[in-house]
């Protein structure tokens, strides 16, 4: 009952024109950011971060979360209509969404993706509220040893979920952690690797680094590969019939299953909406009596992908709010937003700023309703805006990145940092190193180091093993590091055996 009363307080904090406008703007920007191919949800959240400086911390976070939520839906619009997923997680939506549009049922594809997104969003928010509160309560009892082990496990999960790129992911995480050590040591005050540059004494400012890694690197990548003289894109007919309530009801179990699955997957750091939508799609295909229709315009395929994708947003917020560990790249940007407003994500957020947390929960519910309204009535407009030529869009991403980096400390040096990280991200991305783990390394580096040093001072290294939760988490981390190594070795041996048999 206490939760409902807090949620009511949160809703009351959202009463008034200003919060409503902030959420509407957030949802519009999110849909557009998601719909425009070349702008990822994390890039949209990072680019809009400077606009929150003039807001209260609560309203700033509310707007960024609205962007994050809506961007994941926005990606599906272009996936259905022009077979160009606006976000990586919308790739799966295009599998069945675009065939529906080709059959003259674009309205069906859009309607199902919207309803599944919104329903999945609600499922995710419910699970977020149910999980995050007890988890935060448990985390309040943690010692530094547990925090260190938890952050380490979060990072190893990110890297081990890198699939075929697991080595590159581990390298990226470690590079982020190493770059985080530049600046003053938190415990001793010793300056490290600063080359006597005063601006580096506080380390790299987090926001410019992540704007560079998410925005600049992606634009440079597109400048290298994009064909700016694209042929005219065929837009499917939007006047087609949209599904009825009866049609939506046929998808209820698909949406519910995918919503729960998406939230659970979203909780794991690094998994995110893309993995969630792929797994949910696969599960539905296996459960279906007509698996051969998947990929040819099966509405269950669109519903599963979109529900999982949307619910993963709330899933990613569970570890962020309860433990201070971001579950996705966009959630890592939210850490930056909280830090700018001098708030520390983690269990203390629930005890020190409960109104902020519950306002955020309530805002997610309201933003989801706004998303439903704007998605239903504005699809034609979103498509038109999303087709802005990239050659016009990209210069503006550069100037937004510059102003966003400058705004943090009013420092030109930070614009240079943003640009430097952008070039670094472009080079690494080019050679298959993902950039999200670098950001997570930068975010969690300070937490890891402080808790490690505190544990060492409190009782030495043995403390990590004598505290059961810490020992268990460290063991899991070791398994997560060793597992891809062993799998790689096995695959290599198998290849060698096959080669020798072939000879």
């Amino acid at each position: 009952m206490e939760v409902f009363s807090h949620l009511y307080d949160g809703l009351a904090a959202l009463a008034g024109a200003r919060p409503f406008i902030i959420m509407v703007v957030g949802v519009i920007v999110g849909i557009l950011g998601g719909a425009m191919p070349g702008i990822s949800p994390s890039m949209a959240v990072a680019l809009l971060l400077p606009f929150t400086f003039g807001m209260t911390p609560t309203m700033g976070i509310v707007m960024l979360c609205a962007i994050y939520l809506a961007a994941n839906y926005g990606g599906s619009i272009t996936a259905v209509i022009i077979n160009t997923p606006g976000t990586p997680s919308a790739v799966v939506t295009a599998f069945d969404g675009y065939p529906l549009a080709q059959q003259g049922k674009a309205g069906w594809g859009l309607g199902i993706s919207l309803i599944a997104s919104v329903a999945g969003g609600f499922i995710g928010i419910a699970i977020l509220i149910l999980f995050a509160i007890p988890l935060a309560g448990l985390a309040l009892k943690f010692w530094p040893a547990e925090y260190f082990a938890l952050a380490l496990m979060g990072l190893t999960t990110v890297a081990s979920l890198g699939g075929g790129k697991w080595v590159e992911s581990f390298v990226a995480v470690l590079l982020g952690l190493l770059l985080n050590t530049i600046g003053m040591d938190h415990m001793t005050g010793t300056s490290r690797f600063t080359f006597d540059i005063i601006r580096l004494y506080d380390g790299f400012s987090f926001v410019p680094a992540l704007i560079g890694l998410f925005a600049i690197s992606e634009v440079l990548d597109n400048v290298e590969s994009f064909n700016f003289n694209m042929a005219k894109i065929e837009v499917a007919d939007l006047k087609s019939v949209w599904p009825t309530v009866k049609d939506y009801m046929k998808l209820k179990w698909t949406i519910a299953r995918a919503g729960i699955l998406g939230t659970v997957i979203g909780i794991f750091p690094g998994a995110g909406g893309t993995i969630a939508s792929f797994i949910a799609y696969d599960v539905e295909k296996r459960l279906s009596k007509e698996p051969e229709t998947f990929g040819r315009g099966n509405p269950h395929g669109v519903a599963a992908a979109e529900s999982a994708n949307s619910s993963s947003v709330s899933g990613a917020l569970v570890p962020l709010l309860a433990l201070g560990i971001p579950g996705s790249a966009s959630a890592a940007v939210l850490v930056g937003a909280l830090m700018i407003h001098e708030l520390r994500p983690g269990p203390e957020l629930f005890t020190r700023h409960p109104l902020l947390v519950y306002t955020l929960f309530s805002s997610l519910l309201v933003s989801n309703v706004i998303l439903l309204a704007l998605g239903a009535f504005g699809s034609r407009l979103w498509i038109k805006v999303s087709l802005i030529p990239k050659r016009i869009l990209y210069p503006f991403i550069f100037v937004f990145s510059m102003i966003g980096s400058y705004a943090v400390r009013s420092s030109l040096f930070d614009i240079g940092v943003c640009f430097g990280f952008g070039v670094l991200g472009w080079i690494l991305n080019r050679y298959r190193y993902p950039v999200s783990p670098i950001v997570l390394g930068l975010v969690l580096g300070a937490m890891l180091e402080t808790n490690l040093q505190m544990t060492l001072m409190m009782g030495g290294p043995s403390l990590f093993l004598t505290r059961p939760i810490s020992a268990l988490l460290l063991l899991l981390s070791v398994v997560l590091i060793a597992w891809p190594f062993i799998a790689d070795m096995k695959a290599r041996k198998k290849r060698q055996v096959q080669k020798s048999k072939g000879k």
Partner: protein
Amino acid sequence: MTKDLYFFLTVCVVLLFIVMLASIRSGRKERVGQVVVAFVLLEVAALFIWMAYGLEISPLMDSNPATVPVGWAGALAVFAVYQLIRVWRGETPPDPKTGRIGKVLLTVVIVAACIVGIEYAGFYIATSGMIILMLLLLGEYRVKVLVLSPLGWSLFAWLCFEKLLRLGLPVGKFWM
């Protein structure tokens, strides 16, 4: 320290060239980019470890500022070596085909010039110049767009950042 650092960096550059040449000569031309990146990361790890041992350690403190950087750099070195082995054995896909590198380099030059320009000419002039140059570079030649884009941006930035968010944007040394 500075002299030693220059020596260290020179050795790194020389070693990088040797590794690059070796990978080309040994028939790994299609993965030379990956070799270079992995080797540079190994060198970065080595640099951090070397510099960490030069850090001041206070005898009054239980904590050592070098512990964590050495730990991360050591792990980075291990993974970078493992990656080098994978690339050398041909277990990774070949390097991506080179796209419009010329355009990327020009973009980098334009943005770098803009960052320098902000300090001297101010935010509005430098970013407007950058927008025009970037539009031309990316193939947008319509005069209307070339004129309206920087003007629209300047107006938006002034209204939104200067007036609404009260963020003082750099005016430039020339105008001070």
